[in-house]
């Protein structure tokens, strides 16, 4: 048996394992013991989630739609058709009538090429990916306050913290090996505070649990800061030396007495004060947050408020202190880092900055568009309006993952031309004119960047299935066909180009990544990488307090839609389930969707546990089985979004954060009926 060390393709923890290969097939998994995060352990997806690689449903040849049906096609036919149609669109409607969705499941090299393809070949900045739907608010919020929109700590620092404040993260389910760090900290005596509308596993094991209303995060955090200032627990020295804007913060939070905060959040005053004391009194406090903070119309506000809290108490910029947004996808950090975003090149270098743009123009030998492109949801809106005519989607499934799917479907159908590159014929791919077969992580080389900014190798273990090709190869061939030559022999060569043009990846090369990677910023070949950010000074110089007041979610419960729907994931599935739902062990745990309802609400509705409920929003309705629980607040229901046949996103609304353009997946209004 051959064994190939690689990085897990599911979440942002970045665990490493060996793929055991026999007769060209992946048949076994071995967690890496020496890897700093895995340490010989994995979650169920790491152990069992790879059966999809050899699924008979894998796409193994290009497909072209004829009438309503697909027919198999050669690569040449597919390329000719894409070349013709994209050129025609570009000539008739201009470069900005085309948009590209890159993929947080793909490698850094592939994401880099995809944004280069959009910018240099198609001539548009219309490139985005699903980071828009998860941590767009982090990128904006932490860049504003600290100057850098990434997790400030290393994962292993978490076990060394004295206080861990987890808000809006179901850590043990969604980032299992980070959940492990929290449990280790508890074992060592750390105090853990959890704020979440659902009583998660860690909420049951922590020192203090606050069940706050979905979307009331700013009010809760401002309430805690009010208590901290009232009791003189702020870190005056840190505030004076490392920050600016404290007076305006003080003014804003003065209004959020624990009484007022309690009235908005539903959390008892004493708990808010107690949480404030626990967090502020320790000099080793870490904040962990995830989608519960970011997926709101106030996503950026929420993120900036967590940063305010950390700066107020001096809990950032030192080991075992910090603000830790947990990135969801295996490479969503990397896809952002290498510029699969409409406003920046790799390394968060703004497309509007003439000097930076010139640098890329010189390196890529082409003129580049100076205006930021469309974000993901804006692309769909523009498609429906008619200004966007063609899209190229790689490794994303917006027909299940994006808010208000009925709207998504109308938008994609309104396009003149749609190309989807994926490993399965997803719900999105079925709408395409041309489908290109990419490959799984086991069939290619590359790198993923984990949530702790660790750039790690992905190593090819098996040959591409059938006629499928590594995604980076497809992009280079297509780009060259469309008239912008891309010549790379290997992903290592692509990384060398990334390093040359991207200061935070400046010292990265494949030979340096052999020993479990490097953590950026890593600006030069002799730089060892950076375990935690903002040591001594913030990336932006002084940390900027960015106080905001509470704003309610965009769609609140009403007489006709009396419940708040909040969406999320379960530990056994990943996103739209295209991979995990093909695995017997994972699918067996959760074969279908469900709606989690407070037991008292269920009783009042007259729907028993296991019975079918119809859930209806202003945008759509779905039927699924009701799960009666005591771990969710009254008036709130939860639906996991993995299940296309009962798609939670038929119900959600595309209400966006005004700056980050992230949709409010965590709050919309629904009613429940007997199904």
């Amino acid at each position, binding site marked *: *048996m051959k064994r190939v060390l690689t990085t897990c393709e599911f979440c942002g923890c970045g665990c490493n394992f*060996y793929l055991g290969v026999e007769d060209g097939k992946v048949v076994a998994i*071995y*967690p890496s*013991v020496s890897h700093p995060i895995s340490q010989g352990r994995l979650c169920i997806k790491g152990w069992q989630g790879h059966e999809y690689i050899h699924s008979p449903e894998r796409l193994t040849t290009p497909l072209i739609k004829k009438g309503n049906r697909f027919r198999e096609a050669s690569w040449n036919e597919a390329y000719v058709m894409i070349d013709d149609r994209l050129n025609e669109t570009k000539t008739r409607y201009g470069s900005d009538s085309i948009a590209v969705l890159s993929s947080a499941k793909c490698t850094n090299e592939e994401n880099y090429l995809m944004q280069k393809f959009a910018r240099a070949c198609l001539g548009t900045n219309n490139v985005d990916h699903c980071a828009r739907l998860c941590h767009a608010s982090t990128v904006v919020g932490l860049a504003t306050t600290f100057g850098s929109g990434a997790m400030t700590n290393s994962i292993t620092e978490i076990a060394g913290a004295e206080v861990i404040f987890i808000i809006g993260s179901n850590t043990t389910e969604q980032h299992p090996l980070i959940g*492990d760090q929290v*449990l280790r900290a508890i074992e060592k005596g750390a105090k853990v505070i959890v704020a979440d509308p659902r009583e998660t*596993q860690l909420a049951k094991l922590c020192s203090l649990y606050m069940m706050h209303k979905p979307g009331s995060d700013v009010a809760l955090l401002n309430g805690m800061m009010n208590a901290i200032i009232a009791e003189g627990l702020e870190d005056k020295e840190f505030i004076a030396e490392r920050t600016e804007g404290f007076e305006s913060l003080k003014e804003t939070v003065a209004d959020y007495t624990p009484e007022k905060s309690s009235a908005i959040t539903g959390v008892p005053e004493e708990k808010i004060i107690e949480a404030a004391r626990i967090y502020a009194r320790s000099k080793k406090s870490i904040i962990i947050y995830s989608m519960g903070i970011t997926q709101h119309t106030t996503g950026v506000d929420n993120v900036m408020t967590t940063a305010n809290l950390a700066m107020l108490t001096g809990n950032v910029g030192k080991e075992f202190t910090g603000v830790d947004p947990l990135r969801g996808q295996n490479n969503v950090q990397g896809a952002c880092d290498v510029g699969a975003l409409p406003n920046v090149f790799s390394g968060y270098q703004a497309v509007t900055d003439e000097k930076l743009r010139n640098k890329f123009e010189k390196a890529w030998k082409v003129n580049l568009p100076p205006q930021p492109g469309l974000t993901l949801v804006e692309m769909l809106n523009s498609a429906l309006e008619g200004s966007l005519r063609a899209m190229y989607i790689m490794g994303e499934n917006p027909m299940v993952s994006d808010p208000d799917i009925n709207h998504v479907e109308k938008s994609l159908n309104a396009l003149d031309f749609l190309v989807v590159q994926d490993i399965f014929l997803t719900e999105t791919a079925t709408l395409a004119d041309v489908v290109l077969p990419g490959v799984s992580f086991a069939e290619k080389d590359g790198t993923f960047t984990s949530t702790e900014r660790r750039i790690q190798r992905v190593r090819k273990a098996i040959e591409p299935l059938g006629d499928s090709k590594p995604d980076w190869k497809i992009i280079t061939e297509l780009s060259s066909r469309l008239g912008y030559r891309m010549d790379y022999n290997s992903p290592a060569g692509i990384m060398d180009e990334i390093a040359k043009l991207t200061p935070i990846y400046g010292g990265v090369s494949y030979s340096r990544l052999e020993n479990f990677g490097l953590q950026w910023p890593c600006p030069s070949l002799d730089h060892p990488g950076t375990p935690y950010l903002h040591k001594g000074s913030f990336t932006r110089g002084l940390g900027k307090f960015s106080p905001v007041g509470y704003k309610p979610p965009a769609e609140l419960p009403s007489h006709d839609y009396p419940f708040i729907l909040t969406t999320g994931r379960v530990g056994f599935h990943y996103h739209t389930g295209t991979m995990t739902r093909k695995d017997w*062990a994972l699918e067996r*745990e959760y074969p279908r969707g469900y709606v989690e309802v407070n037991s008292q609400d269920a009783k009042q509705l007259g729907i028993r546990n296991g019975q079918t409920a119809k859930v209806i929003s202003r945008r759509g309705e779905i039927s699924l089985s009701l799960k009666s629980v005591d771990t969710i607040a009254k008036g709130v229901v939860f639906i996991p979004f993995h299940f296309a046949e009962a798609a939670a996103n038929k119900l959600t609304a595309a209400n966006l954060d005004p700056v980050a353009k992230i949709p409010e997946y965590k709050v919309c209004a629904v009613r429940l009926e007997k199904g």
Partner: protein
Amino acid sequence: MKILSKSNLVPFLEGLGPEFEVNAPLYEGQDVLFGDLDSSKLATDFIGKPRLSPKEYFFPQRERLFTFKNNGGVEIEAHLNETKRVIWGIRPCDLYGLKFLDMVYLSDYVDPYYQARRSNTILLGLNCNKAEESCFCSSMGTGPFAKEAFDLLFTDLGDVFLVEIGSKAGEKLIEKQANLFTNATSKDEKQAGILEEKSKKTFKTSVDLGKVEAKIAGASSSPVWAEEAAKCILCGGCNWVCPTCYCFNIEDVMSGDKTQRVRYWDSCQLGGFTQMAAMNSRATQAERLRQRIYHKFSYNPDKYGGEIGCTGCGRCIDVCPTGINIAYILRRVANG
């Protein structure tokens, strides 16, 4: 008893080919795992156990059992693996694990797939001169030095291995390369005895098995089950790495006109376990954790003449992302 100088280990193992496929603990990076003999990676200096037991040579993570095809009737092709194999470096805990699996798969119902692999494999054990942090085989009576279930048993005496013969098949391997071996003296055997006593003193984890056996029947309502299960994140790791866990699931994987029946390791900690029989009858995680321990320390001994289903290898302790520790649980049971 024989002596093999350490410098002759690789020639001995390489000399077993091509008749046998030879497997041994190898360094993969800094990790030690069983693999196809590669002298440049051979781990001879390591302490403790490879991260997975050699169970998978007999009961793989994923095993294609047979392929069938409908062509008027049903055409079936079985995939019995009859590779002739020698595995070197099996620790005493893992030798016991295989002895246990033999009881399960080769007694009332003989599993042909297991049997094909098992009857074609020769087991070369390696005694442990030092315990790892999580090891507690000395408490389970399975180590640190093996007493049975090997064809040959190696003890590291420093520059040489003392080699004990456990079966005819083992003896034959020595006879074929007799020039590499010399006869052991009573001094060598005495030294091995000293090493065994020394090794027993290196254990940091221990459990009073007698007390566990006496108390376990009455421990079903202990709070330890719910307390520990509250941390479980359902990774199944404790089952995947266990040398004695033998539960499996089968799936039919269809591709074109052919269907493969595939057997996979399964985990009693998962909600979907035994769902082919409608449901997992243990509704809570506490019950599932209790089942894992009861199976090993109560139901197995009842069924297999007192033999426990735990080797004391400690891998389930090392693999648990949330610190659920079987030795701690057993101590709670013993003291309950």
